[in-house]
């Protein structure tokens, strides 16, 4: 267990970090933080983003979750102090974050507001007007038990999370009530992030097997619908097993299935 002084942040990128580790940031050169720089000689400093798993502390960043440390450079490579640091960690329990697209289950209607279970510590609220084309006279057809794909408008630790099914320009863009049939199941958050990465191999290989519809919620929930129940269940089993299978094992399993 490494305690004591911290190590520079760049040297730990790609390594496992544990809670309690302190990552030192590159020191700002000669600038006295109390005074505003008047001259033009000061190089523009990038803004450093402190992502999930890290907290700002005296002297640098304090790691609060165990995982791999990642870094993304700022837009131009010249600003060495810019960019973002975060910790890639694994967990099963979801904590609502603003802007995340999630699948919620309607648990009740209270007045003009639906209550949704999103898997967090509190239920989220969804106004009936937050659907595309919804007005006071034209209400959306949402029943208790329906699945809703939406995004968080308000999600912080102090307030009840609030969801909407329209984006900032008022269009649905894929959000709303998820149709009939299909199968909803839960996986870990790390697998969802892997599946949502651009050009995910798992999704490409599966789509060559059978055609299917897929909705991925950042709260760990996945909804799948294929032509028959058996195909749906096969896809569900493969997605659940993907968490612990290597790429070769997955290719073998898919080759066996497409051979049948």
């Amino acid at each position: 267990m490494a305690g004591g002084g911290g190590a520079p942040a760049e040297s730990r990128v790609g390594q496992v970090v544990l809670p309690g580790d302190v990552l030192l940031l590159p020191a700002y050169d000669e600038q006295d933080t109390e005074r505003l720089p008047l001259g033009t000689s000061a190089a523009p400093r990038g803004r450093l983003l402190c992502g999930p798993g890290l907290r700002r502390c005296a002297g640098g960043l304090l790691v609060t979750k165990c995982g791999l440390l990642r870094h993304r450079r700022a837009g131009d490579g010249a600003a060495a102090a810019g960019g973002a640091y975060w910790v890639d960690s694994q967990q099963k329990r979801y904590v609502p974050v603003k802007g995340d697209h999630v699948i919620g289950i309607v648990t009740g209607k209270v007045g003009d507001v639906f209550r949704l279970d999103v898997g967090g510590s509190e239920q989220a609220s969804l106004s009936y007007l937050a659907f595309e084309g919804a007005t006071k006279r034209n209400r959306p057809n949402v029943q208790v038990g329906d699945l809703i794909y939406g995004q968080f408008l308000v999600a912080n630790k102090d307030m009840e999370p609030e969801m909407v099914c329209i984006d900032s320009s008022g269009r649905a863009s894929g959000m709303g009530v998820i149709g009939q049939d299909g199968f909803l199941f839960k996986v870990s958050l790390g697998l969802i992030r892997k599946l949502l990465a651009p050009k995910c191999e798992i999704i490409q290989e599966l789509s060559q097997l059978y055609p299917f519809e897929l909705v991925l919620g950042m709260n760990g929930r996945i909804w799948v619908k294929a032509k028959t129940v058996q195909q749906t269940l096969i896809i569900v089993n493969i997605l659940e097993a993907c968490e612990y299978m290597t790429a070769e094992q997955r290719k073998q399993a898919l080759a066996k299935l497409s051979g049948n």
Partner: protein
Amino acid sequence: MEVAEEAAGCSLRPFSCEQGLLSRPDGSATFVQGDTSVLAGLYGPAEVKGSRESPDGATVEVLLRPKVGLPGVAERSREQLLRRTFEAVLLGSLHPRTSITVVLQVLSDAGSLLACCLNAACMGLLDAGLPLSSLFCGVTCALDPHGDIILDPTARQEQEAHAVLTFAIDSAQRKVLATTTRGSCSAEEAGLPAPRPISGRGGVAAATRAGSGL
């Protein structure tokens, strides 16, 4: 793992740990020290009932289940000690009005049970992905009638010792988070008071060295 040269008793039993073995809790871990093993299951941050919610931070609840029988007074007092240790390390202010539940099940008890509970809970907190300000470990010391310090004592050594101390030590600054004593011993033997920098003598020092090995 560091082994102190001073006394033959200053070594730990072989220990092992497994994480993520239960499918329902958000985090789980089992910790085995010699023949003592404890299984920890964590749930959180989850919903909390109205009267128990706190607007400042998460409500931590600890349940310690003995191997046989119903939990009694001894379990309750250990639960309080564990709860205060976890609250010192968890960044509860990030999840106000939620509850974090730690369920510890004793699978077998062959000495150093409280230290094993602390270690299992720490590995479970890591598996659950809860925000922590540091890691922590638990170490038990026994002072035998000759005055020697035995670390990680077995049940037999605990019975023969005239004092058994358990320490919870954090990983960032090697400070003592919690301590509990059974029996009587002098302050020098225990290595207290803590504000003095941990020197080479005493139970706390041996426990800290063992803790850094863990």
